[in-house]
């Protein structure tokens, strides 16, 4: 019997290194691939942070050699630039707050790579994500602190049948211990945080270099001018710092209106929303979002609340409204909303619009 042919995405970090090692230990026929995602890798590295540098490719190659598996580097910089980097800038320019990791998984790292692996005759793709796939369904990782199911919600049955997540039942310390036991060079490598193509963490500066200055006004809900700004894309819903206005009580960004170059601010309690509308929604069982109860997570590491799922698009469930059991503060259009039933990921979508609790309680907000 031929062994299961598995392609492992190896970033050069400890997680995907251990995922590859566990795939080998599972008896699969494993091939490693590192994705080159940037045209100018050197520019992405600041004090060892950032991803897809030449050093990361070297680390991944060294791990593959230690494990005795074939290893390739694929140039997917063009796909990454178009699907993730351009999208990131475009979303901010449109007043939304994108989740580039979810986007990357959807278009490049998981779904895109899986289709390429399948075209090359591989049975499955393995990655170092912390989440579980069992019986073709997606679940949270055992290590709740590291859980990455939030950025994988877009996977459907076509993908989940061919995705292997070997770290799903492990904790981070166990992963590091496994790397050390196997003598992998990446065992002590630091975590990568932030957006990989904004290695210094200065998203506002990155956007300004990319989009140019687009000055405008900071206003309150009644349109009174409170101050000015250098680009609405620098602001995200719920942001408090960097508003450059003097006020007796703290002010928060309520809305970003890029067409008018306006940033609308208000009091903390005005941030509360009690419903969100989703677009590009999908269910992990491939049958579309259906009416019913769920818990929803609106940020990668945010709180979860109960909600009622109301499909708005009976044909395919690609649009839905979530009526939240209790108000949630500061939800930004563009973010992912991910639905859970216990540890099971039901699906999710992109927040297209929010309904303010204050607006519903009181008079409608001006457009």
């Amino acid at each position: 019997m031929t062994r299961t042919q598995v392609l492992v995405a190896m970033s050069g970090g400890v997680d995907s290194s251990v995922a590859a090692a566990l795939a080998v230990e599972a008896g699969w026929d494993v091939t490693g691939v590192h994705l080159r995602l940037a045209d100018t890798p050197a520019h992405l590295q600041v004090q060892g942070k950032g991803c897809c540098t030449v050093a990361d490719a070297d680390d991944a190659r060294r791990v593959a050699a230690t494990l005795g598996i074939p290893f390739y580097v694929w140039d997917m910089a063009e796909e990454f630039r178009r699907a993730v980097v351009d999208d990131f800038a475009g979303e901010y320019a449109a007043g939304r707050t994108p989740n580039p990791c979810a986007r990357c998984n959807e278009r490049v790292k998981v779904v895109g790579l899986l289709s390429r692996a399948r075209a090359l005759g591989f049975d499955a793709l393995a990655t170092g994500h912390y989440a579980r796939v069992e019986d073709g369904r997606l679940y949270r990782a055992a290590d709740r602190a590291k859980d990455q199911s939030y950025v994988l919600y877009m996977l459907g049955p076509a993908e989940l049948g061919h995705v292997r997540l070997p770290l799903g039942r492990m904790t981070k310390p166990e992963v590091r211990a496994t790397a050390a036991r196997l003598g992998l060079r990446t065992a002590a490598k630091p975590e990568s945080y932030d957006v990989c193509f904004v290695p210094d963490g200065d998203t506002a500066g990155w956007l300004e270099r990319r989009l140019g200055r687009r000055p405008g006004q900071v206003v309150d809900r009644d349109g009174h001018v409170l101050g000015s700004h250098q680009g609405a894309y620098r602001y995200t819903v719920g942001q408090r710092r960097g508003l450059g206005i003097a006020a007796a009580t703290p002010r928060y960004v309520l809305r970003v209106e890029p067409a008018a170059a306006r940033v609308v601010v208000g009091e903390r309690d005005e941030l509360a929303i009690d419903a969100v509308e989703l677009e590009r929604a999908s269910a992990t069982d491939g049958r579309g979002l259906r009416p019913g109860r769920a818990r929803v997570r609106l940020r990668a590491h945010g709180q979860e609340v109960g909600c009622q799922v109301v499909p708005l698009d009976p044909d395919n469930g690609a649009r839905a409204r979530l009526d939240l059991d209790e108000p949630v503060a500061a939800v930004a259009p563009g973010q992912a909303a991910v639905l859970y039933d216990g540890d099971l990921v039901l699906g999710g979508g992109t927040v297209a619009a929010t309904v303010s609790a204050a607006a519903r309680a009181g008079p409608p907000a001006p457009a």
Partner: protein
Amino acid sequence: MPYLDYAASAPLRAEALAAMLPLLQRPAANPSSQHGPGRAARAAVETAREHVAALVGAAPGEVVFTSGGTEADNLAVKGAVLARPEGARRLVCTAVEHHAVLDAAAWAEADAGARVAAAPVDAAGRVDPERLGGLLEPGRTALVAVMAANNEVGTGQPVAAAAELAHAAGALLLCDAVQAAGLPGVDLGRDGIDLLALAAHKLGGPTGIGALVVRAGTDLRPLLHGGGQERGLRSGTLPAAAIAGFGAAAAAALAEREQPGYAAALAALRGGLLAGLRALEPALVVNGDPDGDALPGLLSVRFPGRRAEDLLLLLDRQGVACSAGSACASGAVTPSHVLLAMGRDPAEARETVRFSLGHASTEADVDAAVAAVREGFQVLAPQEAVT
């Protein structure tokens, strides 16, 4: 294992290994030392120097050993620029030169007051001497770089014509012959070449050794300073064993070249490979001009709708080694500047695979490669181009 990647590195010849082993096994000796072992090492170096010189129609005293082709190209470009006054540091390179030339020129432009012009090439990758001539500024041009034959598509260049133009403008002619050294088309004296770059491992010698052949009387500044070896142009202890391996490989390549029909036999092998591949994929596109003045063992082909890096993985899994364009620092295959200069788009460049044959290639290698591609095509269907 069928090896069809000679253009990346050719297998070590038995003659080269035999020349190296005694020098590696014998007691340590610096070829610059005045004692017996030193003289013996020096003798091996000088024998090798004669073989290398003979391969390219040069005098032994014109051979400067370097760490390889990259250093040779760097020494030529930077050494020529630094030997000229500012204002006379113009560089003209074909657009398809190796990165060792192009990036050295870019450095000279950024840090040494040079100005660089790239001479365009036609769809086959050949530079037009007239257009090259139009870029020369008489009296202000330090160096013209025209490679003997391109490492990615095999196309030969009009080196002798370029040398005449360069000399008329008061410039030196650098010929990167790293890929073409074993072929009759490269001759320092006959072609008017001033600087000629070689790498041993492309000839079946070891890696880590090469040479810049510097025509007598050429003004060049060294890049490495120290013990003053190689007439002061390249300081550093001479690696006698590597040099001996280089010399033996050069001698073997020269003997091979002088066998009647050697190039024709290599071209016939390549022809069989092309026929086999074309039978599998009639839409296959050949890059360059293999029937013209090209490297006889090199075949660059595009399989429309199939990414070269995908095909390479499938071939590697069957033990067949070939290559796709040039690899970047991370090891990824990026769209080749050579193919782009020839007017291909990036998607086409990503679909290009290079097979290269050489001194030990056999029909069995070619058959195995064709069979592996056939197997690969069973798995990998052509797709819409990803751009």
